């Protein structure tokens, strides 16, 4: 079973269809699968429901799929950085479902772990709980949230072996490990591809069972959204 595909387009072949649900890893522009997003743009699949913490920025990340109007609905926690998003949303072209960030992360984990629903305190008493079941446990009120799954998950990892065992780097990890578990098919773009046995088995973040397709993207530039620095103090 060879999981390695020569490029993003072939790694996505046969698994995309109009109206599908897609999960895309990343937080802001950190750890996003940008090569796979660009390939989805080129493959022109449309009416997508996309589950991703953010919606990219104008011209980068999921912003690419907004430009081409391939996204019908977003499930996110924060979309503040994207003017195009705002225009499409206000014009009614784009549907939007907000989830608190922790609820979104947990819904994805639950979906991947066979848990159809769970209770959380987050959002009780706010519009997030409207229409959802409330229940008391030990004197506190909780809201029931449902697990989420996707037809396809696309993620970015720092390193993969040929089995699909993945390692992420620093805060680029974020939502990707849960999305790998919640996609019927998970496609990973990886900066480094190594032979089986070259990753310490105690240090694997995502076991290969969750990764069906791998594409090696060694030289993709990484984008920084808020370049923030402190001054060098003269010696």
């Amino acid at each position, binding site marked *: 079973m060879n999981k390695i595909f020569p490029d993003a387009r072939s790694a996505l072949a046969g698994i995309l269809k109009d109206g599908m649900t897609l999960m895309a890893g990343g937080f802001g522009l950190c750890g996003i699968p940008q090569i796979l997003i660009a390939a989805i743009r080129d493959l022109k699949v449309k009416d997508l429901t996309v589950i991703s913490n953010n919606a990219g920025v104008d011209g980068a990340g999921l912003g690419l799929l907004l430009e081409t109007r391939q996204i019908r609905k977003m499930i996110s926690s924060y979309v503040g950085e994207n003017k195009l998003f705002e225009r499409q949303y206000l014009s009614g072209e784009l549907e939007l479902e907000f989830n608190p*960030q922790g609820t979104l992360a947990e819904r994805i984990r639950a979906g991947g772990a066979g848990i159809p629903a769970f209770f959380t305190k987050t959002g009780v008493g*706010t519009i997030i709980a409207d229409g959802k079941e409330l229940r008391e446990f030990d004197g506190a009120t909780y809201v029931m949230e449902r697990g989420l799954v996707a037809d396809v998950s696309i993620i970015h990892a720092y390193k993969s072996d040929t089995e699909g065992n993945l390692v992420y780097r620093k805060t680029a990890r974020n939502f990707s490990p849960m999305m790998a578990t919640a996609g019927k098919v998970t496609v990973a773009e990886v900066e480094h591809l190594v032979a089986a046995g070259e990753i310490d088995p105690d240090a694997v973040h995502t076991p290969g069972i969750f990764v069906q397709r791998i594409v090696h993207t060694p030289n993709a530039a990484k984008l920084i959204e808020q*370049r923030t620095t402190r001054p060098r103090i003269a010696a």
Partner: protein
Amino acid sequence: MAWTRDQMAARAAKELRDGFYVNLGIGIPTLVSNFIPPSMNVHLQSENGMLGMGPFPLEGEEDADLINAGKQTITELATTSYFTSADSFGMIRGGHIDLAILGAMEVTERGDLANWMIPGKMVKGMGGAMDLVAGVKRVVAVMEHTAKGQPKLLQKCTLPLTGTAVIDLVITDLAVFSIDKVGGGGMTLIELADGVTLDEIKDKTEANFKVAQDLKSKAA
């Protein structure tokens, strides 16, 4: 004299204790890290998946894989660990973070908070704010006392809520209030900025509040 943003951050820093795990929001709360006493060991959590957040990087040393929840480039420390967003919010929701300091648009006398959405304006989303206020042990709101002359400390929020009965302490540019969010004992004025009078606070606050005993004697 109203407190400056730095003075508000310095006041908020007094809520820190040695060994605390703390989440700081965007804006004035971020400044709090400048006022951590050097003798104090405080761990900053970034809800995208990091404990032990260091300062902003030196120019040229930015790492695209290393950002905080405000998407700013940051650095790591010797104590740093990284984890998934699910584990990060498990940490938050499970009550493991000692203190969160965050910005606010409106706070009520019973500790309700609104800080994520203004109807009629484009909604950016709540990010992790609802999880933080629901899960963190102690939550401090830092905000201007009024907005365009209108009180922000209210009897009831006019904006959509982030959480109900979630705020323990409010630090404004004029004063500090404690809120008994669990016991339902309401809001108490516990400090005034230098030169600010009780009458000014009464004038600029819609919420009902008591005045702490020791403050009464000082103000008298």
